[in-house]
């Protein structure tokens, strides 16, 4: 397994930097040789804010041949672009906007417009030779690092990435808004290509960096999680690894650099090379294991521990990882499966037995992958699949349900706050109607989040059910059609009746 690390947005960029840091020596930050990252990963940073890219010196402009590079996808749309003007006039969205300041629905809306509005598609096609130039340009920058690269870029496939790990902050910014559309775009080309997401849920209270209130960020996080977790397998991502920054802040204070370092350290067993002989699964195998028996992507809670090498370390490693090393609150006993990545010398049987003992999982629900370690330490990363589902579990502090219940409640509170101005007065009427319907309409986000809260309280899995879009669904989407803002809703019975009538008519015309 070799992953392509794609950081999206500010947080994604900071974390991707840790993953992509050159392990080779550099002189004045310049390397004469090939860039060597830990685990052989490759990747890039997608950002929407030019200023953010100017405030750092790790990533260089990808289009100037820099590696590691950043890319601003919406730069492909020129300022005088017909497509851009059409979208502004018709929907009130400026695709050239710098950054998205905790507005998860902004990018969601923009990409839905590209997917569903035939005029926009035509304009984009004539100008950019693509119906969705922003996503296409982003994918065009990612693809060369993957096994899907053309023969020009593909070094016989040996050094290429066979899966993608998107790294985002679940705070409503660029990462939140971009990850779903870009995954959809990749899926339209390769439905089975492994795509995982590492999402960092922002901490409680006001974000000191962006001064965004918790409730606003929580709405962004909720929308993003909702979209990530309700896409069908083969349409959306193959697993959402969640990290709670609240836990990190309690551990490291406001030292975000130390937090980023720790998150990277915790994920090292996942991305590391140096497998035990014969235990190097391709990302595709990992994907199959992650989604086994599911029709929607799972939530994966990482639990990490590292300690100096001792004899028979398995029991202690597992115990400490599941108790002190959780990167998101959860009840390990509720997990459906456990994916175990170790670095060091551990016995396969003992590690499976230890995880089974500590979680109550059957041994066939535990998938271990071992790698060689370093510096006389043993490490373990356990990804617990969907470790929630207890009735009234949301009342137990430290549970996944508890945290998500709070996030969703805060999101609902923000939606109901008249000051939040989610449906801005300055927007054109169709957009206002669509947003009104999306947020507050019958079966809109508010209804669905309330339903989600109820499901969490009852201990139902999954807690989010059906995908919800702002605008009409595009023809590419394989889901059930929904109309928002225009027309009326059509029930299953009515569709059945209409189809039967049409079939009868055709048969009658043919004299059958």
């Amino acid at each position, binding site marked *: 397994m070799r992953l392509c690390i794609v950081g999206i947005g500010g947080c994604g960029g900071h974390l991707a930097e840790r993953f992509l840091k*050159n*392990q*080779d*020596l*550099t*002189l004045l930050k310049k*390397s*004469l*040789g*090939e860039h*060597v990252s830990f685990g*052989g990963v490759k990747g890039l940073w997608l950002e929407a804010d030019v200023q953010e890219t100017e405030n750092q010196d790790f990533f260089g402009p990808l289009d100037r041949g820099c590696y590691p590079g950043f890319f601003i996808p919406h730069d492909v749309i020129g300022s005088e672009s017909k497509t851009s003007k059409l979208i502004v006039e018709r929907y009130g969205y400026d695709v050239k906007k710098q950054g998205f300041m905790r507005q998860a629905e902004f990018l969601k809306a923009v990409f839905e417009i590209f997917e569903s509005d035939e005029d926009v598609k035509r304009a984009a096609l004539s100008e950019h030779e693509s119906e969705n130039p922003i996503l296409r340009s982003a994918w065009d920058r990612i693809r060369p690092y993957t096994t899907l690269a053309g023969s020009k870029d593909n070094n016989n496939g040996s050094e290429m990435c066979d899966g993608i790990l998107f790294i985002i902050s679940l705070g409503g910014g660029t990462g939140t808004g971009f990850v779903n559309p870009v995954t959809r775009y990749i899926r339209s080309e390769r439905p089975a290509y492994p795509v995982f997401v590492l999402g960092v849920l922002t901490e409680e209270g006001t974000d000191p960096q962006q001064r965004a209130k918790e409730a606003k960020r929580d709405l962004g996080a909720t929308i993003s999680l909702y979209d990530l977790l309700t896409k069908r397998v083969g349409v959306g991502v193959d697993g959402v690894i969640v990290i709670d920054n609240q836990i990190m802040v309690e551990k490291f204070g406001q030292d975000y650099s130390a937090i980023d370092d720790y998150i990277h350290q915790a994920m090292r067993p996942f991305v590391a*090379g*140096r*497998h*035990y*002989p*014969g235990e*190097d699964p391709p990302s595709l195998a990992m994907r199959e294991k992650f989604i086994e028996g599911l029709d929607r992507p799972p939530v994966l809670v990482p639990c990490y521990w590292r300690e*100096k*090498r001792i004899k028979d370390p398995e029991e202690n490693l597992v115990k400490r990882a599941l108790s002190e090393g959780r990167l998101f609150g959860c009840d390990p006993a509720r997990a459906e499966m456990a994916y175990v990545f170790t670095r060091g*010398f*551990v*016995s*396969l*049987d003992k590690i499976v037995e230890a995880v089974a003992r500590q979680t109550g999982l059957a041994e066939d629900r535990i998938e271990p992958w*071992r790698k*060689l370690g*370093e*510096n*006389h330490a043993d490490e373990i990363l356990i990804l617990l699949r969907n470790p929630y589902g207890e009735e009234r579990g949301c009342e137990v502090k430290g549970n996944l349900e508890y945290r998500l219940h709070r996030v969703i409640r805060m999101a609902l509170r923000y939606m109901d706050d008249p000051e939040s101005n989610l449906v801005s007065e300055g927007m054109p009427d169709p957009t206002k109607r669509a947003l009104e319907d999306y947020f507050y309409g019958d079966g809109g986000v508010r209804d669905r989040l309330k339903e989600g809260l109820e499901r969490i309280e009852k201990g139902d899995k999954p807690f989010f059910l059906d995908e919800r879009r702002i605008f009409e669904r595009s023809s590419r989407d394989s889901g059930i059609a929904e109309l928002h803002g225009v027309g009326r809703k059509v029930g299953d019975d009515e569709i059945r009746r209409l189809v039967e009538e049409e079939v009868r008519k055709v048969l009658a015309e043919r004299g059958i």
Partner: protein
Amino acid sequence: MNGLNETIAGAQAVEISPPSGLVPQGLTNFLAELYSNGLLGLALFLLLLALGLALHRLNMKRTYERVAATTKGGEVSRDELREEMFIRQGANFNAAAVTAWMLLFAAFGYFYFLTPEIFPRYNYYQVPALASGPLGFAAFGFVVLLLALGAAAFIPREFYGYYELSRKMKVAIMLTGPVLAISIFLSVQQGTTFPQVEQASRLLAFLALFASELELLWPVYAEALGGMR
């Protein structure tokens, strides 16, 4: 010629300038004893190398045994394991490491075999054509580098390819290059001022040489030391 060397070596005794007071007298005397004893120096140099090689083999063996012990059936392909263990350290580091190893051998050659005071019978002055030529020192170094090339090309790959090296460790290994260059420079200076011997320079060149050798072998030693716990 041998007689001449012995005469020169004997003459140096009266021309030795005392080392600076940076190091305590007892230690200075001990080190002076150490670096002026050619056979001891040679033995120490080779011992450190041989120990590094032996510990590297031990580390590899230990890794194999641990992997085998934690593998069902206890059977692991050694070749496959070696392949998995191998880590690309980067072209810049590899270049720096090869250079440092070549400089290590060159510094060793310059320290012990340039002037006749340590090995009166085996040194640069024994080859009059070289010693009296305008590029004699450089030619001497070039010959040593050529001799060291084979070993230097092989050793870094073998010694560093199987260990996770932190960037700090890599920087430390890279810095042995300049340190060894200082050692060479000081030895060359000794060669040009010979038969006068500057003890402080000699000591510094000696320390730079052996500290660098230790640093270059440190990843292997550290792994072995940690593995003993």
